[in-house]
C-alpha cells in the first residue's frame, strides 16, 4: 500500500495492518522524522513538495523491485507532504515477511531508494531563513551499494 498524504500516520495502526497474517514471522518498520539540526543550522520545520502521480509510480516500482528480491507479504509506504514541524513524522516504511533477514533488508532497500528516486523535495525552515536542501552524495552511494549487495 502506497500513500502520499498531508496527514500524520499512527505507527500502531500501520503495524496492526502489517501484522495480521500468521505466515509472517517478521514485521520491520522504519519511521523518518524531522530532526532539529542540519549542516550546523537549527531546524524549526520543513516543507515537503512532491510530483503528484510520478511519486506514486516510483514508489510502486520500488515495491515491485523489493518483492522481486525478497519474499515479502505486506508492504506499506507512507510519505507526508506539506508543512511539518520539528519532531513530526515524515515517512513510514513497513514490510512483513516469513523471514527476519528479508524484512530487514527490504525495509532498508525501500528507504534507501525512496531517498534517491522518489520525487520529493525538502525545504528547511531554519533560524537563518528557509532553504531548499541539496541532495547528498552519500545517499546516492548507499543506493549504489545495493547493486553490489544484490548481485552476490
Amino acid at each position, binding site marked *: 500500500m502506497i500513500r502520499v498524504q498531508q496527514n500524520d500516520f499512527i505507527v500502531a495502526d500501520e503495524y496492526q495492518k502489517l501484522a495480521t497474517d500468521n505466515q509472517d514471522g517478521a514485521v520491520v518498520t522504519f519511521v*523518518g522524522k524531522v530532526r532539529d539540526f542540519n549542516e550546523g543550522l537549527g531546524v524549526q520545520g520543513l516543507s*515537503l*513538495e*512532491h*510530483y503528484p*502521480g*510520478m511519486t506514486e*509510480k516510483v514508489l510502486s516500482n520500488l515495491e515491485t523491485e523489493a518483492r522481486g528480491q525478497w519474499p515479502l507479504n505486506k508492504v506499506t509506504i507512507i*510519505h507526508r507532504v506539506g508543512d511539518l514541524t520539528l519532531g513530526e513524522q*515524515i*515517512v513510514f516504511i513497513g514490510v512483513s515477511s516469513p523471514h527476519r533477514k528479508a524484512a530487514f533488508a527490504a525495509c532498508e532497500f525501500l*528507504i534507501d531508494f*525512496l*531517498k*534517491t*528516486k*522518489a*520525487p*520529493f*523535495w*525538502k*525545504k528547511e525552515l531554519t533560524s537563518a531563513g528557509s532553504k*531548499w*536542501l*541539496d*541532495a547528498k552524495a552519500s545517499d546516492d552511494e548507499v543506493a549504489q551499494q545495493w547493486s553490489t549487495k544484490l548481485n552476490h
Partner: protein
Amino acid sequence: MIKILFFARLREQLSTDCLQIPASENITTEHIRQQLANTDDLWAKVMRTDSLLVAVNQQITDWSHSVKSGDEVAFFPPVTGG
C-alpha cells in the same frame, strides 16, 4: 502542445509551475531545455544548472529523449525526500 512542469527550487526561481509549448517535429528534452534557456538571463541560468533532472511522462530520462505533442515534461532538482 507539450505540458512543462517545474518543481521545488526551479519552480521558485522561475516563478512558474506549469506552462505549455507548441510541439514541433523531432524535438528532444535537450531542445526544450535550450528553448526555455533562451527566454532570458534568469531562465538561462536555471535551465543550465548541471544537476537539473528531466522526466518525460513521469519517468526520469536523459537529454536525448524525444518529445511529442501530448507529452508531460518535468524539470526538477535532485530529490531530497525521506
